């Protein structure tokens, strides 16, 4: 293809792209010097060994049937089978909501919803029991339905009075949090309370991270404001709390929750293991959240405060209407990062005898039929966490770019 670049013929023409021949690319990128050549050969040898060894194991030796055979146990633990529809219902509600938000806003949210639906379809292709595959297709359909509703809402309002729709949307998202918990846990009557909450497998990892972030966000905001307060007593207490919690490992806090909570509370209050774990992870996470939020608060230029005072807002209103919206918007990537860290930390729940994914996998291993499948199980767990964490960090990177946090 020939392109002519006559002066001022078309200012919009892209710069010419250089087409590099393969040989030159190889020379530039892999064999530019003798040292580079050695590095290339060494890396190639490493890759070949890894791929060959892993590939051979994964295809020939691994007994992957352990995963589908125990999938229900790993994902939802001892959740009763006749009540499983509640887990699916929660998932459908989330799918519907994210589809709706995607249809309403488009852009990144739409892409996330789309990826979720595709993931459900891909999972449905895998050789799970037929009922599971049906449920999974339903989940994809719920995202699609939500998307249609969202588009409809957008068209119906003509893009003008969308404010109240957005308000409803946010309210429903926030409400879905306690409703989902109630649905999963049960209240009696048609929704019997599920026993043995501490044996829910992977569901507990997800719940731990969601509850931890959901509760630690408001707490963290308060702590961050307290740490920046002009009142010395409040500042001191908040700083001490934050530094104390950040100075000790989560597992020592879990240890404390498992043995000391019953000493610190009166006789008639005896929270069960899962509640204790959730309280602990909230306490732990709020200290880190406070530091994230503080970072956002510090990034707000002084002029914003001065302008707000000049308009006549008082301190509280300035914080709520002017400062926090900007500060929280700037720390969304950091919050996503913390969500990932918290999600990974939920594997420590096993320390206080909670059967989350990692701990419940050990009960599979103690089953004689599945002896020696330790590699398969750990690789499976690793892959599950990897996919979720990696996609979340990819989302976070996109948000960061969109917000232009690094460029301001």
């Amino acid at each position, binding site marked *: 293809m020939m392109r002519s670049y006559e002066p001022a013929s078309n200012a919009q023409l892209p710069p010419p792209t250089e087409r590099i021949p393969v040989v030159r690319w190889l020379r530039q990128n892999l064999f530019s010097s003798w040292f580079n050549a050695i590095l290339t050969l060494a890396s190639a040898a490493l890759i070949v060994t890894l791929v060959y060894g892993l590939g051979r194991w994964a295809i020939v030796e691994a007994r992957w049937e352990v995963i589908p055979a125990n999938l229900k146990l790993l994902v939802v633990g001892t959740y009763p089978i006749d009540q499983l529809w509640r887990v699916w219902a929660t998932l459908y509600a989330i799918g519907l909501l994210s589809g709706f938000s995607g249809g309403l806003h488009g852009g990144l949210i739409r892409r996330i919803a789309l990826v979720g639906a595709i993931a459900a379809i891909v999972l449905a292709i895998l050789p799970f029991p037929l009922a599971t595959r049906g449920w999974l297709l339903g989940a994809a359909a719920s995202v699609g339905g939500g998307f249609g509703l969202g588009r409809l809402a957008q068209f119906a309002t003509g893009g003008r009075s969308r404010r109240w729709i957005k308000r409803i949307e946010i309210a429903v998202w926030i409400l879905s949090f306690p409703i989902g918990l109630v649905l999963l846990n049960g209240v009696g009557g048609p929704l019997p309370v599920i026993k043995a909450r501490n044996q829910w497998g992977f569901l507990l990892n997800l719940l731990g991270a969601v509850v931890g972030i959901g509760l630690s966000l408001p707490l963290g905001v308060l702590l961050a404001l307290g740490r920046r307060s002009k009142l010395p007593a409040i500042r001191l*207490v908040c700083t001490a709390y934050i530094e104390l919690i950040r100075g000790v490992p989560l597992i020592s806090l879990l240890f404390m929750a498992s043995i000391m909570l019953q000493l610190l509370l009166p006789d008639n209050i005896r929270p069960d293991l899962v509640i204790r774990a959730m309280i602990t992870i909230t306490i732990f996470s709020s200290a880190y959240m406070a530091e994230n939020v503080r970072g956002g608060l510090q990034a707000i230029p002084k002029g914003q405060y001065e302008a707000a005072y000049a308009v006549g807002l008082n301190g509280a209103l300035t914080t709520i209407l002017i400062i926090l919206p900007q500060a929280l918007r700037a720390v969304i990537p950091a919050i996503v990062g913390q969500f990932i860290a918290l999600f990974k930390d939920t594997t420590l729940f*096993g320390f206080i005898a909670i059967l989350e994914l990692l701990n419940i996998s050990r009960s599979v291993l103690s089953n004689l039929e599945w002896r020696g499948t330790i590699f398969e199980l750990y690789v499976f767990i*690793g892959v599950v966490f990897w996919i979720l964490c990696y996609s979340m960090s990819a989302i976070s990177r996109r948000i960061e770019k969109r917000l232009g946090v690094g460029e301001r």
Partner: protein
Amino acid sequence: MRKRAGSPRSIAFWRDVRVLRVVSQVLFLIGIAAAIWWLMNNLTTNLDRSGLNIGFQFLRDTAGFPISEGIAYEPTDVNGYAYLVGVVNTIRVAVIGIVLATIIGTVVGIARLSGNWLVRKLATLYVETVRNIPLLVQLFFWYFAVMLTALPLVKSAIRLPGSIYLSRRGLYMPWPTPTESFGTWGWFILGGFVLAIGAYLFRKAQLKRADRPGFPLLWGAGALLIVVIAGWFLTPGSPLALDIPVLKKFNFEGGMWLSTSFSALVIGLATYTGAFIAEIVRAGIQAVGKGQNEAAKALGLKRGLVLRLVVLPQALRVIIPPLTSQYLNLTKNSSLAILIGYYDLLNVGTTIFNQTGRAVEMILLIMGSYLSMSLLTSLLMNWYNRRIKLVER
């Protein structure tokens, strides 16, 4: 009218900012104090009921449980000493882990910016894989899957060159042990150090006078090496004897033993934290302006010198603060040792708690230990950070 507006009396006290400040702080403190009082009250009630009282006397009682690794310890020693063994074990893992993680992180971080496409991709693969899998899953993988399942039994241990044996019992390797003539050689080592410092200072001053870069540390190391090696030959007999592990009936004897849980913990912590450090190093190097690089090249410095004299010293200022928090994370994460059976301070602490039932004291002790270690690390790193800080005009 004007008088009233100007006088402070005109503001009602419940709208006076100065009064409100004091009142809100007092109320806040009263709330906190009430909460603490309530908790303490519950605590004393609960402790009274079970007939316990708070006190650290139990630390002088005999521990009675074995600790398989660490400094010399017998089950007949006291609880306090057992705890100290745990603290030393934690410090041992943390220090070795920090050193290894820093090496891995620096190498991988530089590799991620390499001009070599394959090396760059390989480094990215490592970082993205390790960072997105929970540390505990990795530790379990190393310990239960690799160390306890994939490795052979003691009888058929893998023999690596140099009499190093790898099996489910851990790693056995030859270790030098001092003989009678070690004392004489010790003096040579001491003298070598004195001479090394002298050589280092001399060369440094010389280089400064000549105003050019060089390796004064190399001079010091060279002086030390020459004296120590000369001492080795001058000392009658061999000052160190190699203690080689030998397979006896049930296990290896002699040599240095690294337990499987220790090895798994160190490998897991170093590779996990190394991936995070790699990102920090990469970001630090990228934060140094491109112009710096180009200016250094324009002056005629070689690639290695550009990195060592221009880029890294500036990158270090960006790297140190996040690096500090990674070191702290590694130290705190070493508490996962308890889940793979390594006797760190938390593991020993919980064992003492199980034996004595002293919840409050042990919690205080454990939290205090971690807090002081965190404080110590950040003090050290802050001192280093101040030292390398940009000296502004």
